[in-house]
């Protein structure tokens, strides 16, 4: 099955129009297969993207562009159980996760 989500880039323009991702450390909750991550990750300093679904995280890791591999980390995790340092992110993205 082939499909395409937001090939017109409407979502991408909205994301990048609202948030300045340049040099930002980003936490993404509910990243799924990384579909949205790729839309903002390029100018960031780092991205930690989490999802509770290991299959989705596996897909995200497999589809990570080489140019982003050094700055994007995907992790199987429930946000309520994550242990992270206080004040370590500039941006948190919740994609359909509330």
């Amino acid at each position, binding site marked *: *099955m*082939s*499909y*395409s*989500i*937001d*090939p*017109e880039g*409407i*979502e991408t323009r*909205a*994301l990048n*129009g*609202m*948030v300045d991702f340049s040099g930002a450390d980003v*936490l993404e*909750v509910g990243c799924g297969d990384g579909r*949205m991550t790729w839309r903002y990750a390029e100018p960031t300093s780092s991205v930690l993207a989490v999802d509770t679904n290991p299959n989705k995280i596996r897909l995200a890791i497999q589809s990570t562009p080489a140019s982003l591999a050094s700055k994007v980390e995907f992790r199987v995790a429930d*946000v*309520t159980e*994550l242990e*992270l*340092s*206080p*004040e*370590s*992110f*500039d*941006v*948190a*993205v*919740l*994609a*359909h*996760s*509330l």
Partner: protein
Amino acid sequence: MVHALRQIHRWLRPRGVLLDLHPEPEHAGLEVWQDGTVRQIGRTANEEDLADIHDARGRLRQLEDEGWYSTQEQRVFDLVSHFPSPDDWLEFQDQEGYTTVVDGDLLNAARDLINSGGGEFIVREPIRASLLTSLHKGTANARPGNL
């Protein structure tokens, strides 16, 4: 999730931002794009999803009322997904674990159109993006530390 949003507040730097994206409480539009023409087919009918969306908005409002975040900007846009056929969309929904409630006659109408004249099955979902600023303790009416 309210607990998670409080956790996220702790992980954000001062004046850090939270970008939340979730659907508008409206049924997604179903279309067939064929030879440069958009043919409206109808809408989904997921009432349970709409209730979930209202609940999600309520959680964000609660966090704002408690003084953890303040909304800076909101935008609504259409997330447009393209599928070769309605059945591919149904398969995608199933794979993603999404509940799909849609009138079978609408799907049949889309199938007939695509089978007879080609084209794509389009799902148009209105999304609200909300940008919230993380507030410092002491900058809001209700202080997170007091909760």
